[in-house]
């Protein structure tokens, strides 16, 4: 009987480790993995870590429900639900929200003439596409220009 009580009161480390790992994994994409194309373009590192976290949470829930303390069962249920929400939110943000981009069917295609434009550079000077294509790079005529449209820092 006394042994039973000590087992029940034991710290449920898999549960809390799994909980912590879900949050760390979520933020690790934006802090670390986004900087490397191999982990950015498909979040396999995050999926792997989430899988480990899910196993830990599962083990934690089993431990909690094996004990006869009601409180540890409730805590395990809440913690696991939060962990699952974090994982679901990441998957939603990556695989669903990430695809909410305009189709841009009218964008210039290969073989077409690139639309001309004139825009201000960081010093406020007006620069045209034609200038970008003709201003020498290290003393040589450019072979081309790579336009990178991005959302902005705002």
């Amino acid at each position: 009987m006394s042994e039973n009580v000590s087992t029940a009161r034991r710290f449920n480390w898999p549960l809390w480790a799994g909980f912590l790992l879900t949050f760390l994994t979520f933020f690790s994409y934006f802090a670390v993995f986004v900087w490397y194309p191999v982990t950015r373009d498909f979040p396999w590192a995050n999926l792997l870590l989430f899988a480990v976290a899910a196993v830990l949470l599962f083990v934690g829930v089993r431990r909690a429900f094996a004990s006869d303390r009601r409180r540890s069962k409730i805590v395990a249920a809440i913690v696991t639900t939060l962990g699952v929400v974090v994982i679901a939110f990441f998957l939603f943000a990556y695989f669903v929200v990430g695809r909410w981009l305009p189709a841009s069917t009218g964008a210039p295609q290969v073989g077409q003439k690139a639309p001309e434009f004139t825009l201000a550079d960081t010093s406020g000077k007006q620069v045209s596409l034609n200038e970008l294509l003709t201003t020498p790079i290290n003393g040589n005529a450019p072979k081309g220009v790579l336009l990178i449209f991005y959302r902005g820092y705002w």
Partner: protein
Amino acid sequence: MCNSELRGIEQNIQQFNAQGIRPVAISVDSPETSRNLAQQAGYTITFLSDPNTEAIRRYDLVHAGAGEGGHDIARPAEFLIDSTGTVRWVNLTENYWVRARPEQILEVARLLK
């Protein structure tokens, strides 16, 4: 996120220059914002400001209302344009988190005369 892509280009700037390719980053950011970003991150590539989405509209890249305060911004996209002004390569990513890689662009750039 966009910074991740720009950093990749910047890290390969010597190869781009050697190939005669000039990378140019375009967004709705003001010249001051772009200047600060370039200074903080150590970017040497050209930044152009398109606050009224003139070029962004001409390239059909407007992402309506997606910016802060519901402003129109550009969706991520890359174009490689040769010296005659002809588009030689386009990347319109279908997922915000997926971007063109510098190696991939340099590969195409090698084919330009």
